[in-house]
């Protein structure tokens, strides 16, 4: 009979506060440096800007103390840092656009979207008391996801920009529903796969060493595959299609632990993409522009040329190891410097060093997400957090890989950095969900959970150094003894909190 050792649990809110101060210093410092770099003076509103950003960050911090006291203390500061770097860069590009007489004012809108996103993230944390609630909406999420994917195809709502029909206009606000679709589909995959993981993994014929799934298990999966190929075909959006399919394959693998799924998934996608690239000229052009980017003919090609990509490479090259410094490069020479090409913009002004640091922030963020997935006890939470963490990493890979010519260029936003309301909103919700799951994962369970009342009273929220209560009921202790085994996913015995 194992006994529960009294041990210290660090909720980490204190650590988080200090990290937030660092992240805010980074964000506000970047903003001030942009001013210094472009006009030799610190922007007049730097204090107001800093105060606003601090209010958002600290507000979310307080919400975490209240509603998710055990949430991972690193996720929020890293996100604030990335969002702050993005804001500073967009502000910097705004200045260049203004000087060149181009459209500008992106920074203000991005700040507005940051505010909305953080408030919404807080709302998610407040309302969604337990991530398992989402499992109830498995099929709703699938429908929502597919509808969101299809929205741009609607005649009035959808608009085509640069050949890709991925935008929806609601009033004066343009949205990229695909950003939210990835969220909905992650919820769907998590809910669906956790239910069907055993049948998917074990049932069905074996062929050439691969465990093939049964046809009826395959149905919903084929629907989603068809959906993402449809995105590629009808919306000409290679990026979203690749993103969704990556998410899909990764979550299938997480659920079934079968490499065969990855093989089948990749084969399906590559097959679809090859057919698409031969049938649809724009996909083939992407490959041309990737493989022969420096070719003068392709560089100068009006549509589907590599000019934008290569100009981005020029920018990164001129940044070199240490960059030109905030506000001292010419990122505005690349089209969409503030959105799709914000990574080359950052590479130019912050250099390789800065870019590697930013990539490290993503590594930390996504690995902390995976950490939450590993720590959480229910299968749905594992799949959800794993899928969400993966989709952030995957999106980074597709975007940054695209602009650095590692893979063909696709139009996707860099999470948190790039200009764009939908992207910011969706990714902040992802962060909120990861925080929610990590709270569950890091809660001093099962012992503490056993004694927990409906609501943790403020006095019960452990301080960073407070020992966990050692008074453990027998039932909870018994559960603790079997902590090595995963709890039964199918029949959660614990209370499931609802949307309050």
């Amino acid at each position, binding site marked *: 009979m194992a006994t529960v050792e009294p041990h210290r649990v660090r909720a980490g809110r204190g650590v988080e506060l200090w990290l937030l101060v660092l992240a805010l210093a980074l964000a506000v410092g970047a903003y001030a440096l942009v001013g210094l770099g472009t006009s030799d003076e610190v922007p007049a509103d730097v204090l107001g800007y800093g105060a606003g950003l601090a209010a958002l960050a600290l507000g979310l911090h307080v919400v975490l103390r209240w509603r998710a006291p055990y949430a991972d203390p690193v996720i929020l500061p890293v996100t604030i840092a990335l969002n702050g770097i993005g804001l500073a860069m967009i502000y910097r590009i705004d200045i260049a656009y203004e000087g060149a007489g181009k459209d500008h004012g992106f920074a203000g809108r991005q700040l507005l979207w940051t505010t909305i996103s953080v408030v919404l993230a807080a709302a998610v944390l407040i309302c969604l008391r337990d991530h398992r609630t989402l499992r109830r909406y498995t099929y709703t999420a699938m429908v929502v996801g597919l509808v969101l994917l299809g929205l741009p195809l609607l005649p009035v709502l959808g608009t085509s920009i640069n050949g890709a029909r991925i935008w929806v206009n609601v009033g004066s606000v343009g949205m990229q529903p695909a950003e939210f679709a990835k969220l909905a589909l992650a919820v769907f995959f998590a809910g669906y796969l956790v239910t069907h993981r055993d049948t998917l993994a074990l049932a069905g014929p074996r062929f050439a060493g691969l465990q093939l799934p049964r046809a009826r298990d395959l149905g919903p999966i084929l629907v989603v595959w068809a959906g993402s190929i449809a995105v590629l075909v009808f919306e000409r959006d290679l990026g979203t299609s690749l993103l969704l399919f990556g998410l899909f394959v*990764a979550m299938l*693998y*997480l*659920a079934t*632990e079968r490499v065969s799924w990855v093989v089948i998934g990749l084969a399906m996608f590559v097959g679809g993409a090859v057919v698409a690239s031969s049938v649809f000229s724009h996909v083939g052009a992407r490959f041309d522009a990737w493989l022969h980017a*420096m070719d*003068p003919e392709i*560089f100068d090609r009006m549509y589907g040329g590599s000019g934008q990509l*290569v100009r981005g*490479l*020029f*920018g*990164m*090259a*001129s*940044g*070199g*190891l*240490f960059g*030109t*410094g905030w506000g*001292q*490069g*010419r990122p505005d*020479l690349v089209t969409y410097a503030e959105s799709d090409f914000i990574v080359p913009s950052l*590479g130019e002004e912050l*250099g*390789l060093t800065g*870019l*590697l640091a930013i*990539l490290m922030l*993503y*590594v930390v963020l*996504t*690995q902390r997400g*995976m950490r939450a*997935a*590993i720590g959480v006890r229910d*299968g749905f939470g*594992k*799949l959800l957090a*794993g899928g969400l*963490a*993966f989709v952030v*990493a*995957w999106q*980074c*890979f597709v975007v*940054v*890989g695209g602009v*650095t*010519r*590692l893979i063909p260029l696709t139009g996707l936003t860099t999470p948190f950095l790039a200009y764009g309301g939908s992207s910011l909103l969706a990714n902040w919700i992802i962060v909120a969900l990861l925080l929610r799951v990590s709270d569950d994962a890091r809660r001093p369970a099962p012992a503490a959970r056993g004694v927990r009342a409906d609501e943790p009273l403020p006095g019960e929220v452990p301080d960073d150094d407070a020992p966990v209560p050692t008074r453990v009921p027998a039932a909870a202790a018994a559960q603790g003894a079997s902590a090595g085994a*995963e709890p039964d996913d199918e029949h959660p015995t614990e209370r499931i909190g609802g949307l309050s």
Partner: protein
Amino acid sequence: MNTPLRRVATVMLVMFLALMGSATWVQFVQAPGLNADSRNVRTLYREFGNARGPIVVAGGAVARSVKVDDSFGYQREYTDGELYSAVTGFYSVVHGSSQLERAANDQLTGRGDQLFFSRLRDLVTGRKPEGAAVETTLVEAAQRAAFEGLGDQQGAVVAIEPATGRILAMVSTPGFDPNALATHDVSAANEAYAQLAEADGNPLRSNATLETYPPGSTFKLVTAAAALESGEYDASSTLPAPVRLDLPQTSATIGNFGGGGCGANPITLADALRVSCNTAFAQLGMDLGDDALREQAQRFGFDDASLTIPMAVAASRFPAEANAPQTAQSAIGQFDVAATPLQMAMVSAGIANDGKVMRPYVVERVRAANLSVVSQTEPEVLSTAVSPGTAAQLTDMMVDVVANGSGTSAQIPGVQVAGKTGTAQTSADAAPHAWFTAFAPADDPQVAVAVLVEHGGSAGSEATGGRVAAPIARAVIQAVLAS
């Protein structure tokens, strides 16, 4: 489910490592190539957007970058642009750069290896990198004397300090105004460039260093040097000096300037040089042989394509193979012999410097933006052309040229000038090039100079080196000695 989660987490890490690798590939490995790509306007913008260092003559900037409010940030400005155009060259958004602006680009932009620490400091302090100042060896008064001496005539002047190789003056006419090419108004720059490219006398190319001309009788210094170096001749050795010299293997003959004799026949080597006797030197050349002449010419710097000052210099040449009549013509600086004005100045400077030719240079030192000296050019012996004894005999003979011979118009009261005239035939219907090369004072040489006036300049077919070119050399020598 933790095992696949860990594996996927590892895959994610690998994905980010791949991204870091590709970012490094672009920003570090491929960066030099991408930066050098002609389609990369950023490199141009950055160069123009940084303070390019000035080109300095005697403490004053003759080329500098001033801050302007356009997309480039800085505008290159030239003071006395035409006067210094052969040295500074131009720096243009659309047409690239030439001469020092090109040759010293690394220093002027601050990118040179020598400026590594100053770049590092800029990086740490966050200052915009500033280019280094390139200080030239030019003497303003000498430059002006040469420029004004040439006036409207096409030609070139090069003056060298014999003991060091410092270039004291370097002028090419017609010059051009680099400001017209440096303008950021692209169409204006294009128009100016098109005009200059088609203008008479090719103003964009420096006559002093990039064009070669038949050196005419100034080459007799090389022939005389070869004779003295052979050990079989001295200043008083006698040479046959007929009115016309029949060339073997051909019906051609060589005559003297003006068609007459040389005053004596036979004539001493010293007198032959003094009166610039063609027939005596042509025979001497044949007697010495083309190998001896070529070797002597090369020891003065002919046939060296690698010379930079730091701008590239066209190689002066002595024909690789020559039969007897060709050798006879070569010995008096005709046939295929061709020399830059800089080369002929190097011949005089070598004789003046006891036979040692110093490597010519125009950059005295490079100073970083904080005024610290980044590099200083040290004088260097390029070659030993003749022995000190030969140099001394040649000096005496050249003094005689100016005192009593064809170069009397280079005389300066109180200063012993050593010189040699040249009048080089080009084609039958064009006036000859007028040459003069000299150094002074003969006993303590401070300056060696070569003057070329194309096609006789304003004197036309009446021109001789002594009449047209020598006065310019005299003015330059006086300017150097007075400064």
